[in-house]
């Protein structure tokens, strides 16, 4: 009866999840408001940020390194670090709080043709030439 579970214990459980979960990377901070650090927001390190960056977590330092030489979009930072976008946004908000990075609103989208106008034209064409 006591021998029953014996054959199994040798099969050691392998832990494959990443060692450092995301909530530790972000320090448990919450996501910044939706309109801050959007995908296309541009971020850059401040000029004199290098010295203070030394005490940061490896992930935050990696973000600092990426944005050290110029502006990079939030989505790109996420792509390069391999971290989920939300995690990067939290890191960036934290770095901005510590006055290490600068965020710039995305350049407003280039003049896109007015959708309504296009619809109106389409409708006009349809009525004129049939479907």
């Amino acid at each position, binding site marked *: *009866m*006591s021998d*029953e*579970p014996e054959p*199994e*214990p040798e099969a*050691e*459980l*392998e*832990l*494959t*999840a*990443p*060692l*450092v*979960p*995301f*909530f*530790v*990377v*972000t*320090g*448990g901070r*919450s*996501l910044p408001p*939706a309109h801050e650090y959007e*995908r*296309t927001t*541009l971020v*850059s390190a401040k000029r004199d940020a290098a010295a203070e960056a030394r005490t940061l977590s*490896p*992930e935050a330092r*990696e973000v600092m*390194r*990426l944005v*050290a*030489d*110029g*502006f*990079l*979009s*939030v*989505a*790109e930072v*996420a*792509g*390069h*670090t*391999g*971290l*989920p*976008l*939300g*995690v990067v946004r939290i890191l960036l908000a934290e770095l901005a709080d510590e006055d290490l990075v600068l965020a*710039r609103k*995305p*350049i407003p989208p280039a003049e896109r043709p007015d959708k309504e106008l296009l619809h109106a034209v389409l409708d006009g064409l349809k009525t004129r030439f049939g479907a």
Partner: protein
Amino acid sequence: MNQDVLVWCLVAVAVIAVAAVAVLSIRSRAVEAKKQHNEAVLTARLGEAEGRLRDVSAELHRRQAEQQVTIRAAEEAAEDSTKAVLKGAARFLQSLAAEQMVLLEEVQRKYGGHPVLADLMEVNHANAQMARRAHGIAVMCGAPLGRRTKAASVYDVVRNAQGQIRNFRRVQIMQQTGFALKASAVSPVAHAVAELLDNAASFSQQDAPIEVTFQRVQKNLCIVIDDAGVGMNDEDRQNATALLSGTVQPRLSELGTQPKFGFPVVGRIAAQYGFRVDVTGVSRYGGVRAVVLLPEELWTEEEITAPATQAQAQAPRMSAVRDTDDTYELPRGRDRTVSGLPKRGARQRRDTAAPVREAGAPPARPAAVERNSGRSLGALQRGTLSGRNLDSTPSEGPEDS
């Protein structure tokens, strides 16, 4: 004649007296003899009774001893069977929790840009705590901890431990080190540190910090955990030391209804994997200083970059393209991301075009001096462009060069 009568009377009285004395003495002698006889009989009986009593009490002791042995055997059998049952259950929970950790990681990546990420991270935190409990129970029942197959920096191991306790925000890791733990030590050390952090958190005030520092002392690497709690008295210290050294291994039934797994589990793990844990020190805040002492067999000095392991999971195909050709030729490490992608900084994209790299010359260096003006503007523009390309799919390594 009167005198004669008197004399005769006196004689008679004397005779009577003598006779009475004689009779009395005979009587008393008889009584004495009887008494002695009775006493002898009583003493004999008493001796007999005492002997019987002695036999009975000896029998009693023997029975008691027998009973103790039986009870102990029964307890051990009960302990063993409880352990077997609990072990099976704990192992089940262990593997479920591990599975869930992987699943949650995937879901968090999938919904990385969605507000639900915040909740997913909460769930992940709860799951990490549950996993620690499951591992703890498993270890108490003699099952192994889950193992990891990759070496990791001590810093990350402590961060992993941090994630396993409720108030993880209170934990401050004060420094980063170039020390890495060997793969086999990652999981046990993380678990031990997690238990110590949990202990530190539960015996100090809600907002008090818990500081983690690293020290190298001769051939040992120390993970030092300082709390600002109430400290321990001498008895607590002795108990803790006994538990942590693994010399005292309490039974499951001795752990109480709100079982204190912490120190017994740490003691077992430490003994099993060959490190030491000490909690007798006093922290700089007057609380407890816990030290995990890792002998040199368990760690190395090589540095393991944390984000690399994570980035690889996400972007294997990006690094595959890059790593094959020119990763190692690049003289400036900062031009690359950890996954081998060229980093997008100012002007780098054009300056580090393929021909330059083949020559192995430091790319973008000479140009860097002249281009200060207009640098940010160009970067801004390119950043925007590339950012938009990247918008939906984060993989853009191959398109570049």
